[in-house]
Each structure stands twice: as structure tokens, then as C-alpha cells.
């Protein structure tokens, strides 16, 4: 493979440096890498841009198998590459459910075959996501996909005994259970955050306590059995307090927040536009501010997209009939820049920590979330942080267009992504 010399990039937002890629690994990082060492290298002018390790998304829905009309592994990984990602964890709620070694291997192999982004399948915790019987967690771990993260995402593992057993069982191979915290009885008929806006609109409320009570239970279970638990898409100020308490107590808990929960509030639901319908629902401004603060101080460990593609017809209807979810891979970094970097809450090294190093560590993604230094795999991305432009879903690589940001101005534009030294995105265009 040929060499690539990235000139003058602000590595993790620091002073400009050159990065030389040789084949699939980083050969050197420093100032003024001599032309000799870089002879024959393709030169990428990265002046003014920020270089980060390839982003890692611990929470993506690729929809294949089963809902290829919304997304496929190919279109989803192309969207990921567009957003600066080099690895995504694909959620298990496909058709069939990813609850066997066969399904997870299929998804894993499709990712490898397409070559835009490593796809690390997440295995279901229970058979068919039904919450009754543990899926073959060990077999999925031992498969070619090497599953380490298990989740019934979309549904909560609400049975305390099943949750306890899952937490215990995955200790055998260092796995983690990622919980979609939603007490099912408290959210029957739920359409949006329960509060002032839901009262007025007459839409069924999804109370914060339905999330918080499950998180409280699960951190206590994790403590009791000495396992690690990961909280998916945490969305309320109260959840932040519980995770903060759990961490102070030494409980092995990690948590993620989605970009949309860092930016949008339930006031948007007044439009009854289902593009804002998501689970967990958009909360209040007070929650948004608490989530930003928690992400800044490390209480929330990572940003995960919960990229949830849906075809047009599932959103172009009345609110109650619409599917829940929004796409996020291609706008995640821009939203994080707007809400965390441009507000001064986080620097770019902090973004790298929360969108690459830490998610890779939680998911045990080999070769991802590594330092930008010699000898490491060349999983990298460049972002033009000065860019300002409005979001145009027509240009998305994702098969679906259900973004809440259509027409909204967001900062930052990912220009390049390299997966093990192979460019997947060049000047904003997929290869």
C-alpha cells in the first residue's frame, strides 16, 4: 500500500503536526516530517483542520437483515464513513434478531466485505428481545464476530432476574450489557416526554422516572454481582445524578448520550412533526444542560448516535403512527461541536476521548480508539471545524433521511476518513 502524508493537521486539536501513514499503520507523527521519509506519499493538506482518531459509535442501527428499505450494512457504513466513523456497533433489533452466532457473523462479514467501516455486531441479551430467556451470549462471543456488547435495545431488559443473570454471565468473557432503560409499565402508550408540553398536546407521557428507576436498579445489580453495565442513550438530569452517585461508589457503570439529546428539547414536539419522535424522547432544556455538563465532567462517558434510519413513509404521517428514531451518523460530530466544543465545555481531545477512545474501550473494539502515534492502526479522520452550513439530507449516504436537522445550520464538516490507511472519505466524498 502507498503512503499518505497528512500535512499540518491539529492532532486532537493541538499544534499542527504531520502524520505519515504507511499502509495500514501510522508510521510517524511530528513536525516537519522530511520529504525523504515521505517520498512518493500522497499529500493531504490539512491546514486548519483537526485530526482525530476514527470515531467509534457504540449504538448504531444498520437494519440489515430485515429492514433493508431503511438501511443496509453498506449504506449505513457509508454514512458512518461520511461522519468520520471507522467502527460502529450494530444493534441487535434486526429481523431476524441478532441473537445467534449466525446472524452476528453475517452482519460482521458484510461490514468487512464492504470496507467502509468496521461493523461490530451487538448481540441480543434475550432470545428475540423478548426478555424471557437468555440468548446464546457465549456462542456469539466465540463467533467470528467476537461479540462483547449485548443489548435488547429498543426494549428494556425489565425482568430483574434476567438482567442479573445476564450481567453475571458475560463476566466470563469480559462482556458488557448495554441497557435500554425504560420501565415498560410506566411508559405504556408513551409518545413524548411527560411534562408541560405533553400535558398540553395530549400525547402520552414518557416520564423521566421510567428511565431513572431502571438505571438505579441496574447499577445496584451491577454492584451486587460485580459486573459492568452500560446505560444506553441516557436522557434526563435525574439519570445523570444516579450515574454520578454510582460512579462515586465505585460501581462499574458507563453511560452514553446521543447528539440529539444534547441539542433538542420537547418543545419541538409542538410541531407534531414525527421527525422529532425518538426513544427516549426529547426532554427539557434543563435536562439538555445537565447532559452537556455530565458529558463534560465525564459522568457520561461517551457520545453514541442511536442512528435509527426509517423510510419516509414511516415518518410522513400523524405523530402517533410514526416510527421512533432519527438518523445521526452524519451529523453527530457537528452537533457535538455546536453543543460541547463551541460552548467551551469540551476541547477536541475531550471529543476524541468521548467519541473514539472510550467507546472503543467499552466495546473492546480492537484497533480502534487508539492514540494518534507511530505504530498504531491508521484509523483517522479530519474535520474542518471552521465550516458552517445547513444540513441537507439529500446529500446523506444513509438510505433514510429522517434527520431533525434539515435546513438547520451546524458547524464542522468531516472531510477525510481513513480505515486502516485506506481512505473511505476524501474531501467530503465517499470513495
Amino acid at each position, binding site marked *: 500500500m502507498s503512503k499518505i502524508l497528512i500535512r499540518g493537521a491539529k492532532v486532537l486539536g493541538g499544534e499542527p503536526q504531520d502524520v505519515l501513514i504507511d499502509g495500514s499503520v501510522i508510521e510517524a507523527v511530528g513536525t516537519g516530517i522530511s520529504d525523504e521519509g515521505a517520498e512518493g506519499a500522497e499529500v493531504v493538506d490539512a491546514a486548519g483542520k483537526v485530526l482525530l482518531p476514527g470515531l467509534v459509535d457504540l449504538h448504531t442501527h444498520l437494519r440489515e437483515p430485515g429492514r433493508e428499505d431503511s438501511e443496509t450494512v453498506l449504506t449505513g457504513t457509508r454514512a458512518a464513513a461520511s461522519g468520520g466513523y471507522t467502527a460502529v456497533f450494530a444493534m441487535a433489533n434486526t429481523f431476524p434478531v441478532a441473537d445467534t452466532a449466525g446472524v452476528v457473523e453475517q452482519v460482521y462479514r458484510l461490514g468487512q466485505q464492504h470496507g467502509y467501516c468496521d461493523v461490530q455486531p451487538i448481540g441480543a441479551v434475550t432470545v428475540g428481545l423478548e426478555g424471557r430467556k437468555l440468548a446464546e451470549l457465549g456462542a456469539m462471543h466465540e463467533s467470528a464476530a467476537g461479540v462483547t456488547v449485548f443489548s435488547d435495545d429498543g426494549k428494556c431488559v425489565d425482568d430483574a432476574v434476567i438482567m442479573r443473570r445476564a450481567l453475571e454471565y458475560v463476566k466470563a468473557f469480559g462482556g458488557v450489557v448495554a441497557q435500554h432503560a425504560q420501565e415498560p409499565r410506566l411508559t405504556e402508550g408513551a*409518545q413524548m416526554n*411527560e*411534562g*408541560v*408540553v*405533553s*400535558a*398540553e*398536546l*395530549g*400525547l402520552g*407521557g414518557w*416520564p423521566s422516572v421510567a428511565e431513572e428507576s431502571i438505571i438505579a436498579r441496574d447499577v445496584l445489580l451491577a454492584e451486587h454481582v460485580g459486573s459492568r453495565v452500560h446505560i444506553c442513550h441516557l436522557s434526563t438530569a435525574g439519570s445523570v445524578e444516579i450515574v454520578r452517585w454510582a460512579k462515586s461508589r465505585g460501581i462499574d457503570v458507563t453511560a452514553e448520550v446521543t447528539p440529539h439529546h444534547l441539542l433538542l428539547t420537547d418543545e419541538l414536539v409542538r*410541531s*407534531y412533526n414525527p421527525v422529532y419522535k425518538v426513544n427516549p424522547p426529547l426532554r427539557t432544556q434543563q435536562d439538555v444542560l445537565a447532559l452537556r455538563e455530565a458529558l463534560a465532567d465525564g459522568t457520561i462517558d461517551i457520545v453514541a448516535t442511536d442512528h435509527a434510519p426509517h423510510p419516509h*413513509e*414511516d415518518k*410522513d*404521517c*400523524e*405523530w*402517533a*403512527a*410514526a416510527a421512533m428514531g432519527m438518523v445521526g451518523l452524519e451529523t453527530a460530530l457537528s452537533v457535538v461541536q455546536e453543543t460541547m466544543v463551541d460552548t467551551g465545555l469540551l476541547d477536541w481531545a475531550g471529543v476524541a476521548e468521548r467519541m473514539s477512545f472510550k467507546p472503543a474501550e467499552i466495546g473492546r473494539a480492537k484497533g480502534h480508539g487508539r492514540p494518534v502515534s507511530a505504530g498504531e492502526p491508521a484509523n483517522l479522520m479530519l474535520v474542518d471545524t471552521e465550516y458552517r452550513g445547513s444540513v441537507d439530507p439529500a446529500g446523506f449516504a444513509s438510505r433514510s433521511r429522517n434527520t431533525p436537522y434539515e435546513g438547520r445550520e451546524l458547524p464542522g464538516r468531516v472531510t477525510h476518513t481513513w480505515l486502516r490507511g485506506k481512505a473511505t472519505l476524501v474531501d467530503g466524498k465517499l470513495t
Partner: protein
Amino acid sequence: MQRHLISAADLTRDDAVLILDTAEEMARVADRPIKKLPTLRGRTIVNLFFEDSTRTRISFEAAEKRLSADVINFTAKGSSVSKGESLKDTAQTLEAMGVDAVVIRHGASGAPYRLATSGWIDAAVINAGDGTHQHPTQALLDAFTMRRRLVGRDAGIGQDLAGKRITIVGDILHSRVARSNVDLLHILGAQVTLVAPPTLVPVGIETWPCEVAYDLDSTLAKSDAVMMLRVQRERMNAAFFPTEREYSRRYGLDGDRMARMPEHAIVMHPGPMVRGMEITAEVADSDRCTVVEQVANGVSIRMAVLYLLLGGNEPAVSHTRIEEK
């Protein structure tokens, strides 16, 4: 006035009074031997009902026919409405047929708003009840009934309900009637108190322009009107309250309670009533109970709304004002 009527909260005080005044004129038509005006001749109105409601549909239909509009009834219940396409598809079908107004009843909150704002259709949209959100013509007919009874049929012209104290009792959480009435009565200057067990009061109610109480007895003596809402028996199974009897004891309106209301105070109910549950037969059949009047007034109100929204062939009561807005 706006082009659509989606929520009572969208009305200004003047809009609302104009509708009530126009309804008084429309009510006179009902007293004539031939109960028909040529106002909406040549206009096509569709009653698009995705949810059963014979009473509301018939009321709209009567209003439309008295205004000489061409009426199409479309009942979508039973068709596959599991996904939303049918609303959009139906809307576009109606649009293609050149419909001037759509009166929509839908089980999903926000469906009429979607219909009016999504570009699926150009027709005027009138919300005839959406989920647990709004039912603006119900609130208007209630306000019309209150104004007639508490201010006076002729004395009420041009007047609002300033200073009147209205108590609404029952399942506030699931009631589009309550939401619409709180909005409209506030706009008309009345003071509203909602009374319900705490389980039937929505979280987030604190921003509503009204008071909330859990005790019915303490509010009766200071009420000019008490509106009883229907309580569905299935709420009991969902643990909103322990038993039907306990609900009736605490929140039902019987003769003893009615006796504690001021002499001029009226009892209202949007119907259909569950006698013995939220209201006793004694109260329902008393001359203080306005249920039957409310039904009659509903036709006048709906005539007024259709007339004002669709701008008839003849000059409206204050047509210029509407044009200016």
C-alpha cells in the same frame, strides 16, 4: 380568524366572541320552519371520521346541511389505519376531489394539525376531536351554553365570560374537552377550576391557566357552572381509581352536591353521560342540567364556525374584519 380550527387556544378573544355571536344568528335559523341557509351552496365538506362519534358527526352534518353545503361522510374506522399513510392518502384523495373543508375526528393527538400543516391538502381543516388533545367546537358550544344561561341570550351578544367561575370535574388526563375548555374559557375571561383525583390530572398541568383541586365539595359553592366529564369504566382497571363506587362518592354529582351550588349555577356534561357514575339521574334530569341544550347549541356553533371559516357567499357578520386578519 385563521383558516383552520385546530385548537381552542388558537382563537383570540374577539374571534371567540364573533363565533358565539354568529352562532346566535344561526340559532334563529333553527327556529324557522325551513331550517336552511344558502350560504355554503356549492361548497363540499367532508366529515372524515377515523374514530366513532355518531353525535359529533351528526351535529356537523346537520350544520353543514343547514348551510346548504354538499356533504360527504367518510368513516375510516375498520380500514387499516395502523400506519399513518391512510391519513395522508385519504387527504390527497379528498384534495383531488376538490373538497373545500375537512372536518376530522382522529384518535391520534395532532392528526388535524398534521393534516393542516403538512401540505397534503389545501382545504380548511376543522378539528372535531383529536386523541386527548383538543375538541374546539365542543368548547365553543359549551361557552355558548354558558353565555346564554349565565349572561343571557340577547344580553350576551358581544360579551365574553369575564368573572364566571367554571368547575370541570373528572378525567382531565384523557379529556380533550377539558383541554379545549380550559383554553377557551381562559380566553373568554372565566376562572376555571379542574377537579379530579390526582391520578387523572396530567403531569405538567401547572402551566395551564386554571386551578387544580382534588376536592369537589369545597369548589361547588363558588361555581357558576359545573361541567362533569365522562369517566370510562376501564380507567378503573388501569388503577386510576380503586372502585366505581369510590369515584362516585368523591367526584360524582348527586342531588345533595347540586343543592350546595349557587341557585343560578348550571350543570353541564359533554355526553354521553354514564348515569350513576359521574352524575346521578336526579341531576341529569334536572332543569339545571344543560345536556340537551348543549346538543342543540352544537349545531349552531358548528354552523358559525363553518360559515366564518369558509366565508359564505353573503357578507358575514364582520366579514371585513376576517379578511383583514
